[in-house]
């Protein structure tokens, strides 16, 4: 099962999918595109807890994708 965590006021909103669930997979892929269009940035967590890398396309096999916001000077 894969999970997308989208940082928001609730902490994070989770979106789950299974690779063999076409409907859930399509929803997750569509959401990925939508968030990318909004300018948010996706990171896939791999292997170790701390290993994350930026991704630009939805990976159905990803275990965890964390969405963050663009940064700016404060």
């Amino acid at each position, binding site marked *: 099962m894969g999970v997308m965590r989208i940082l928001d*006021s609730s902490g994070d909103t989770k979106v789950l999918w299974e690779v063999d669930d076409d409907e859930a997979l399509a929803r997750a892929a569509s959401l990925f595109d939508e968030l990318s269009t909004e300018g948010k940035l996706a990171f896939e967590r791999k292997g170790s807890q701390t290993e994350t890398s930026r991704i630009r396309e939805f990976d159905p096999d990803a275990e965890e994708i964390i969405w963050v916001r663009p*940064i700016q*000077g404060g």
Partner: protein
Amino acid sequence: MASLQPLEELPGSGLLVEVVGGDHDGELLVLVSERRGSRCRQAADLLGPCEIGDDVRATLALVESDCRGSSRDVARGPGRIRARRPSATRARSAPSQTAARWLLESLLDEAQLASWRDRGRFEVPVPDGTVELGELYNLRYRRHDGREFALCVVPSSHASLPLDDIWTNLLLMLRSDPERFFAVANYREYGSFGALLPGPVPRG
């Protein structure tokens, strides 16, 4: 009656807490004791004017009572309340902070986690030094050559995020693209009180 959820020890000895329940549910307060320093007052000024109700006063009286005899200098009573967040930030509820804390800690390595739990801040290595996360609007950038800068970088619309989500956001950005981080940062020499300069930050 409302209760208070501690969120963050502020530099200069303040405590950022969130009101849970009551008329002021979701509002943030900075508690300042008689020993609190000027930096905490700066933080309070950032949060806005003070305005509290009787339910919070009653809770603070309980907090004060609980802390008597404790070595931890937490809250000294309603007279020390400095500020509250504007209503736009009411979404920072205790469950959201718990979720954000869990995610952040899951992303830290062993040394970072120990530092975070001990000091409320942790260092992220970058090619020419480290950036310390944990003090909002005042991120300490230590270059290997000894120069230090205070950086101000935030996620967009960061006021709607729980504080620990802000650290998660900055952590992932720093790890993946430090050049972007230093390009957008406003900065000044660490410890100075000069105006912030627009990025890019001078690199070592």
